């Protein structure tokens, strides 16, 4: 080890220092202790140095000269490192970089140091937005712009299923995070080959060992509930996610020599990958995750762990309270103004917000009756029907194919939304656009109710480019004792399509009721801009 050419430049002292350090590392390894980051770094450097020395025999003096020059600017960078890594490592670092064999090894350390410095300066100037390497696997891109112009976002993984390179990248990332990869099921209709199609019979939790070591158990439970459809509906999913994160933060303990603000975010990344494998994340969940990450990275480094955890949990509670619970109260207030006595209101599927509005209006003694429209295969309208009938509201129940029959009686249509896109399109359960279309043909006003935390910066014009494909076996049904589609997999040219979402163009929607007030569909980007400026 002491034969390397580069060493001859340094003094003997450095060499001996280094030897001592290396011996310490070897000792630590033998004792089975986990190596600290700097020790790992040093080991890596040694290995690379070895390789390089074995390779080139010619021109070592030139190399030395280069390294000398490079070593001069190098010390300046390590000087700005975080306090934990000052003093002893700094000169060693310099010497190592001087002695270091390959340029890439050196530049990686330099880059990391640069990044640390940049992050520190960013945090001190209270911008706190994470860059590059800590992107999670969450499907919707969430880069809120700092500058006036929006940044073009990286394409999310879940719409690139037809690209083998993207799939390989995802597989590698999941392997690194120790999250199981879920495989697609069944024949996919050619128009949708860029999307995943999973089967409910093979949840990703099958491939996890019990007890799960990498993924927190409540996250595993949540993922299973998502993939089996036990928790459905964007509000329910977001609230469940936030509660689970509270639990995760409660159980979290900072490892030594790590900062809570950075490490917790890193811990959350595999959880988010796992959840998006169970079911692609919704826009509301994406916004919630962005908020949490921002809050975590805003925790000052002087904060003690218990205090920081308490602060984070309070943040999450206030988020749920403001954005979901109070928002629905505000929306109900606005919406009740729009409901008059004698109204016949049409609702579709089960939207928690719309059900809340109707229950509130009924409590305020408004006289109206409700028509619940339902569709196969989810038949979520039954749940809405149950809740409304329990309250005592007069209800009628039809399937979506009977829409033209029932619409002449209807005075208003209330719809819920999964997300509101920046070009004014409403993304909601499949069938919503159909209802809006037929309502428009009969001149019935269509009102969409949506909280502002579901506003999303994506733009989309049709239901194909980004959607979710549900289990195709759900379409199989038995009528008169026969189920014709039972063996659909055996027939080569037969495909089943079970879409989850669709987009409604803004000209079908008359009004959007949000917690900020009643706005037209095209004002969504205005609201987004106002929100960003506030933040």
């Amino acid at each position: 080890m002491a034969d390397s050419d580069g060493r001859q430049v340094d003094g003997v002292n450095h060499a001996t220092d280094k030897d001592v350090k290396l011996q310490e590392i070897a000792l630590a390894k033998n004792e089975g202790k986990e190596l600290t980051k700097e020790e790992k770094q040093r080991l890596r450097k040694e290995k690379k140095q070895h390789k390089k020395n074995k390779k080139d025999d010619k021109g070592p003096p030139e190399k030395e000269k280069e390294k000398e020059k490079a070593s001069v600017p190098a010390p300046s960078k390590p000087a700005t490192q975080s306090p934990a890594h000052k003093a002893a490592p700094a000169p060693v670092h310099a010497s190592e970089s001087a002695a270091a064999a390959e340029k890439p090894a050196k530049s990686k350390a330099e880059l990391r140091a640069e990044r640390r410095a940049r992050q520190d300066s960013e945090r001190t100037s209270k911008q706190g937005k994470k860059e590059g390497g800590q992107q999670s696997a969450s499907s919707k891109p969430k880069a809120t712009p700092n500058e006036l112009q929006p940044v073009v976002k990286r394409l999310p993984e879940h719409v690139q299923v037809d690209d083998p390179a993207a799939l390989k990248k995802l597989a590698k990332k999941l392997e690194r995070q120790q999250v199981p990869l879920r495989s697609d099921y069944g024949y996919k209709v050619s128009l949708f080959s860029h999307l995943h199609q999973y089967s409910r019979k093979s949840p990703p939790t099958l491939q996890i060992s019990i007890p799960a070591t990498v993924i927190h158990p409540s996250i595993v439970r949540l993922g299973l509930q998502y993939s089996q459809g036990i928790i459905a509906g964007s509000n329910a999913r977001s609230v469940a996610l936030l509660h689970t994160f509270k639990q995760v933060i409660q159980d979290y303990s900072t490892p030594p020599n790590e900062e809570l603000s950075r490490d917790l975010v890193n811990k959350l990344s595999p959880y988010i990958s796992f959840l998006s494998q169970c079911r692609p994340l919704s826009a509301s969940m994406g916004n919630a995750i962005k908020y949490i990450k921002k809050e975590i990275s805003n925790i000052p480094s002087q904060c003690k762990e218990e205090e920081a955890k308490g602060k984070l949990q309070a943040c999450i509670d206030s988020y749920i309270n403001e954005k979901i619970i109070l928002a629905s109260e505000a929306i109900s207030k606005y919406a009740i103004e729009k409901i008059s006595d004698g109204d016949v209101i049409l609702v579709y599927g089960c939207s928690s917000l719309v059900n809340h509005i109707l229950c509130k209006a009924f409590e305020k003694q408004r006289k109206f009756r409700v028509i619940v429209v339902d569709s196969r295969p989810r038949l979520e309208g039954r749940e809405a029907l149950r809740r409304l009938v329990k309250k005592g509201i007069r209800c009628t129940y039809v399937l979506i194919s009977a829409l033209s029959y029932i619409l002449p009686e209807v005075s208003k249509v209330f719809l819920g939304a999964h997300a509101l896109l920046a070009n004014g399109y409403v993304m909601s359960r499949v069938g919503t656009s159909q209802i809006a279309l037929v309502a428009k043909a009969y001149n019935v006003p269509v009102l969409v109710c949506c909280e502002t935390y579901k506003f999303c910066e994506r733009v989309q014009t049709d239901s194909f480019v980004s959607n979710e494909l549900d289990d195709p076996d759900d379409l199989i049904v038995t009528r008169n004792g026969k189920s014709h589609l039972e063996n659909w997999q055996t027939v080569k040219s037969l495909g089943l399509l079970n879409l989850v979402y669709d987009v409604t163009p803004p000209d079908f929607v008359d009004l959007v009721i949000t917690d900020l007030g009643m706005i037209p569909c095209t004002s969504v980007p205005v609201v987004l801009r106002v929100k960003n400026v506030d933040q």
Partner: protein
Amino acid sequence: MPGADKETELSERIEAFLSELKRCGSGAGSLRGSAETARETTSLLRRITAQARWSNAGDLMEIIRKEGRRMTAGQPSETTVGNMVRRVLKIIREEYARSRGSTEEADQQESLHKLLTSGGSSEDNFRQHFTHLKANVIEAINELLTELEGTTDNISMQALEHIHSNEVIMTIGRSRTVEAFLKDAARKRKFHVIVAECAPFCQGHEMATSLSKEDIETTVIPDAAIFAVMSRVNKVIIGTQTVLANGGLRAVNGTHTLALAAKHHSTPLIVCAPMFKLSPQWDSALQELVLRSFCFLLPGEILSKVNAHCPVFDYVPPELITLFISNIGGNAPSYIYRLMSELYHPEDHEL
């Protein structure tokens, strides 16, 4: 007596036919296609013509009208029965006119001049007795039967004129005419079919399996996804239960939504309907509802507190339809009223 036996046998047959109609309507028996119903009605009418006792055309028309009223009352939504009765009445009028020697055109045309000058001479015209009237009428009814048997083939023969290669076609529910149409085109062209399943009976599933067996690329979608996928569809081809005199349709529920979605995307809507489905009757109050289908969808305690509707048919206005393909060729919806006047006599519109 042989005459009495024949009569009882005849009335037995009529009774059997009526009960068959009623059973099919309630869904207990096997679902019959309209073509089959039309053929059976026509053969029954031929039997009546052959075996009933009548001396002149007027009597025969009375008998047929009476039986026709009974049959349509048995299953009002099955309009093909009434249509066939009207066709036969028209045949009788024509044969009578031919036997009398007067030209057909003069009798058929309803000019204002004729209305003013003739004035109520139709009724007593049918009292003359002609020996060969019976034979002529039966022969004409035989021709009608042959025409009925060839309707599906005639429509399918036009398939290649309307479907090009790599097309995406959407259809809803199950129509035997459309099935034959698409299968005929699939023999020479490759295209993709999307079938909307049409809940709650989901006849679309049967259609899809039958089409995919002929190696046609088929996809089944739930009704809620009709608008979502419509932007990628090139043509919509549907069948119907009845074609109305204004060019509108009475088709299976969900068709109006499909037609609106097609109109929004400017996708042509083509209706494959044989001529025997053309009906002059429009009873807007008649909307058959089927409630039993909901017992498997809703739990009992909710079902008792809730009104549930399940209509069977939809009305589609003629503005949403692009083309009618029938056994006599392609027609625009605005031309249907003219075809109607050729098939039925205006006095038979009300049976």
